């Protein structure tokens, strides 16, 4: 039997050694972790209009593809905030205040009036693509996605979805099966009268000619309903900004 004193000395010594080893390793790897995370987020944005092709890009290619992406942080009224304005806010002091620095999971928990929304604008084949971020709840945990809209701010160019803990083979298919995000291509979020109707993920199959619905994944009803709700509420947050944008477009045309 060891003495109580020995036990204390042993545990304290062990804790100190372990803490030093882990802290050292963590500090050493931190720059790589940060870089990896940034690339991962950029890839998710790019895959909204590139599809699975984005997964094959190397890290350098991602950075190059992202170099000419314009980033905006919008507030609830649809007003773009400058980088410094974002940095003044509580959570973002240590970051650059760009759209990609937003912690969307934390933003979702805030009150609507305090939320910030990222918007990316990228020129693809001579046309502007507006990429919005949406976030909602699936069956087990959060789901989120990027929706790329064409210049008319109506037609969907592409989408990419991700999730925290949906069931593999069922809910997780929103990410794993490229057919699902692809089915949103060409769908429209406004009806012919200009009202916002979003896109419905329809159980039992959507009519091919239906501009506002896509097929649901069988066996994943709750996740698919989550996607429907996420699109409807998520895209609505961008409406104030789109209104001003459309007015600007009209003004330019005159």
């Amino acid at each position, binding site marked *: *039997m*060891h003495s109580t004193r*020995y*036990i204390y000395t*042993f*545990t304290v010594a*062990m*804790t100190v050694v*372990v803490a030093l*080893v*882990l802290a050292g*390793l*963590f500090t050493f*790897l931190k720059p*790589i*972790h940060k870089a*990896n*995370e940034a*690339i*991962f987020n950029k890839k998710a944005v790019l895959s909204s209009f*590139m*599809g*699975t*092709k984005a997964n*094959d890009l190397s890290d350098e290619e991602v950075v190059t593809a992202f170099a000419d992406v314009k980033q905006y942080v919008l507030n609830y009224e649809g007003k773009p905030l400058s980088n410094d304005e974002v940095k003044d806010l509580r959570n973002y002091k240590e970051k650059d205040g760009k759209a990609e620095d937003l912690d969307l999971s934390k933003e979702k928990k805030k009150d609507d009036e305090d939320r910030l929304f990222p918007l990316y604008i990228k020129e693809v084949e001579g046309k502007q693509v507006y990429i919005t971020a949406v976030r909602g709840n699936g069956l087990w945990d959060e789901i989120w996605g990027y929706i790329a809209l064409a210049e008319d701010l109506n037609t969907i160019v*592409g989408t990419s979805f991700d999730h925290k803990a949906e*069931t*593999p*083979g*069922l809910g997780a298919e929103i990410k794993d099966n*490229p*057919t699902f995000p*692809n*089915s949103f*291509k060409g769908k429209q979020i406004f009806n012919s009268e200009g009202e916002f109707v979003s896109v419905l993920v329809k159980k039992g199959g959507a009519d091919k000619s239906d501009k506002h619905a896509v097929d649901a994944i069988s*066996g994943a009803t709750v996740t698919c309903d989550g996607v429907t709700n996420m699109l409807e509420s998520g895209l609505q947050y961008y409406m104030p900004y789109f209104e001003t944008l459309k007015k600007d477009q009209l003004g330019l045309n005159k």
Partner: protein
Amino acid sequence: MAETAVVEKEPLFGKKERKLLTDPLGDNNPITIQVLGICSALAVTTLFFKALVMSVAVVFVCAFANLFTSLLRNYIPKQVRMIVQLVIIATLVTIVELVLKALDYTVYKDLSVFIGLIITNCIVMGRLEAFALANKPWRSFLDGLGNGLGYGLILLIVAFLREIFGKGTLFAGSPAEIKIIGASIPSEGIIYKINTAAESGIGTWFSWYANNNLMVLPASAMFVIGVLIWIQRSWRKELVDIS
């Protein structure tokens, strides 16, 4: 003639050492014989590549946790030995997590929960209690290595079957993804890059095969492991408990 004390010979790779490595692969497999570590075996075997990463992580943790516990075995106070073992395992798991996060962020995202749960994997703790506390470092290391490999072997067999029949691919989620059986997914507008038959030179077989979704669901891992246990026990009758 001077009398010399009889020293027990401990060769680097004697019969005993080899047995430590090979036993857990077959006759004393942690999953199929001891039925430990089932939880993660069900969860991370949907894709072969994921299972491979998980296996490497468990082999590393198991081998080095055994080594360090064995090195410290005469100094660890008996009253707190479980806590000390837990700290050793947790440290190694955190190291694996940090390194994986730096090496492949996508895989880290997919596996993060399960890597963390290696801490609670009863195979690791079981080997520390049953072997490392009573044996010398080298043998403990081999024992950990063997048990990690035994776990990994089953994981890879299950993942191989589940991915082939569930998705028709191998190594999905890594750059080496290959379509093996079933028709390729038709690309719709964008290019869905998969190294198909012609490109990889392997050939896509059974183009009529439709992916079996059951194989992707956790329940199928239970069936596959059950069948593996059945096959092993009917092949080696002496493994069957008659108690």
